[in-house]
């Protein structure tokens, strides 16, 4: 019974495929899963938007949207309708083709990222051998669409915003890769399904999630910071800094294209947190051995919503970083730590079982963290402000 609940979607898929001639069956199967992804994740998008506005409100001692539907639950539907009906203004001097293509390109690329994520037990759309590499390839392409958006609107602010966003995304891409690389190194394969299977073992009832290892925990933290920056969220949301750059690279967008950008951003956030879950939180594996009866996909979506809440929480609490602080933080703190983490993972691998490697690795990481924080960051904090005027 439990097994059926777990494999409910797979069975559904096979049931539908059975109606079609053999030749088409594989095609139909793939189409079905694609359609399901395209439906599920925008729904999650709506929920997370709502959650964010309600959460932020709560954090700021205010109610948040409660006019539409009971407790404001239908607010996302209202937003969606609004963006659809709003007039789509394209600046005359803008480069029409590129202007139109930018959001489309962004959304397509982001959705393609989901092909490799294992949503549940054997519920991955395409079980690629180099799945992680595919995911990062897609991640890398999003910067280009951001640039296209910023440049095509021929608006100085949007261009500046785009430049900043691209620079930020490139800078944090490397730490993200290196953090995930640690996991690949330990499991020995880039196949996400394989990574989840390795984590899906239990000793004394506790799962083998990578987050419970020193290098895993450090990698998860680095991954978290990198991904928040990667999706221009919260402390790193300089490109959309309303106060200076109006709305960053999508200022000249309005109507549905603006909604698309919004959708792209949130779906990107979801996919990134989904990857984080698979790499460090054991994907669809249950937190405790005894909870195994619960269907796997529930665990996956639960972990995703949990990380979304963390994103929202971060947005509510942390102040926005300055551009140079942001870059220094990336190149002089996160990157070295992730490199060190690689070495520590190597050490962990070749030191035999037992407590010693726990102590040694965690000691190294803690010492490095303290030293880097104290030494690296001090002179950055309160230096005199230096102004450079635009020519």
């Amino acid at each position, binding site marked *: 019974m439990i097994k059926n609940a777990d494999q409910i979607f797979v069975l559904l898929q096979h049931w539908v495929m059975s109606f079609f001639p053999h030749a088409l069956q594989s095609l139909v199967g793939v189409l079905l899963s694609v359609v399901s992804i395209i439906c599920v994740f925008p729904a999650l998008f709506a929920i997370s938007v709502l959650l964010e506005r309600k959460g932020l409100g709560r954090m700021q001692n205010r109610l948040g949207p409660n006019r539409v539907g009971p407790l404001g639950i239908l607010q996302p539907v209202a937003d969606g309708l609004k963006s659809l009906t709003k007039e789509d203004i394209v600046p005359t001097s803008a480069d029409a083709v590129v202007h139109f293509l930018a959001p489309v390109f962004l959304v397509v690329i982001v959705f393609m990222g989901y092909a490799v994520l294992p949503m549940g037990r054997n519920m991955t759309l395409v079980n690629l051998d180099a799945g992680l590499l595919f995911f990062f390839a897609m991640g*890398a392409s999003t910067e280009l669409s951001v640039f*296209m958006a910023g440049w095509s609107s021929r608006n100085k602010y949007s261009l500046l915003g785009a430049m900043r966003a691209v620079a930020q995304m490139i800078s944090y891409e490397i730490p993200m890769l290196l953090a995930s690389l640690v996991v690949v190194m330990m499991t020995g394969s880039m196949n996400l399904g394989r990574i989840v299977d390795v984590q899906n073992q239990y000793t004394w009832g506790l799962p083998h999630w990578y987050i419970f290892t020193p290098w895993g925990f450090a990698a998860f933290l680095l991954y978290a910071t990198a991904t928040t920056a990667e999706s221009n969220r919260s402390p790193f949301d300089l490109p959309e800094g309303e106060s200076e750059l109006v709305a960053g690279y999508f200022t000249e967008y309005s109507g549905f294209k603006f909604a698309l950008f919004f959708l792209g951003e949130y779906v990107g956030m979801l996919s990134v947190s989904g990857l984080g879950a698979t790499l460090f939180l054991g994907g669809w594996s249950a937190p405790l051995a005894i909870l195994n009866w619960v269907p796997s996909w529930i665990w996956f979506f639960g972990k995703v919503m949990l990380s979304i809440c963390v994103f929202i929480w971060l947005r509510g609490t942390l102040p926005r970083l300055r551009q140079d602080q942001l870059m220094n933080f990336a190149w002089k703190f996160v990157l070295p730590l992730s490199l060190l983490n690689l070495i520590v993972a190597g050490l962990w691998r070749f030191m035999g079982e037992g407590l010693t490697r726990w102590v040694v690795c965690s000691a190294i990481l803690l010492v490095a963290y303290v030293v880097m924080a104290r030494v690296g960051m001090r002179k950055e904090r309160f230096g005199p402000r230096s102004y450079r005027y635009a020519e």
Partner: protein
Amino acid sequence: MTIVFYLIAAITIAGALAAMLLKSTVHCALALTIAFAGLAVQFLELDAQFAGFAQILVYIGAVAILVVFAILLTRGSEAPKGGVFSKSWPAGLAIAAMVFAVLGWAVLSSTSVLPNETAKPTVSVLEIGNALMGRYVLPLEIIAVLLTSALIGAVIVAKHEKGSAK
């Protein structure tokens, strides 16, 4: 010759031609990314997954962005004063045509030599890892050194001198 190959080939060639012929340099850069993407798909067609994803990651992710940055930094995006093409473009074109003719001739005339169809090789990332760390460890180290030096070199070349005007 599968239909997919023709389709993708057409897209890649279109992208490449656009990259070379468009007036606006940024459009050229974007067309270039299309050509890169087409190539990546061709790699996947040839069952070289790792190479395909690497192509996307490196070229579309990094090189395209780099090109675009270079264009913006050198104000290439504004309309260029003189003509887009150099004065002696027919000569260049003729030579390119000749090169293509020679290459085409070589390919077509060597039907006997080339190997025939072979089974689809299944390549796992593990094998690639072993190969990289085993047989090709020296090239890997050299590439590492090369990339670092290129990195440092590019930075030195492109950074503002401290006192210089702009």
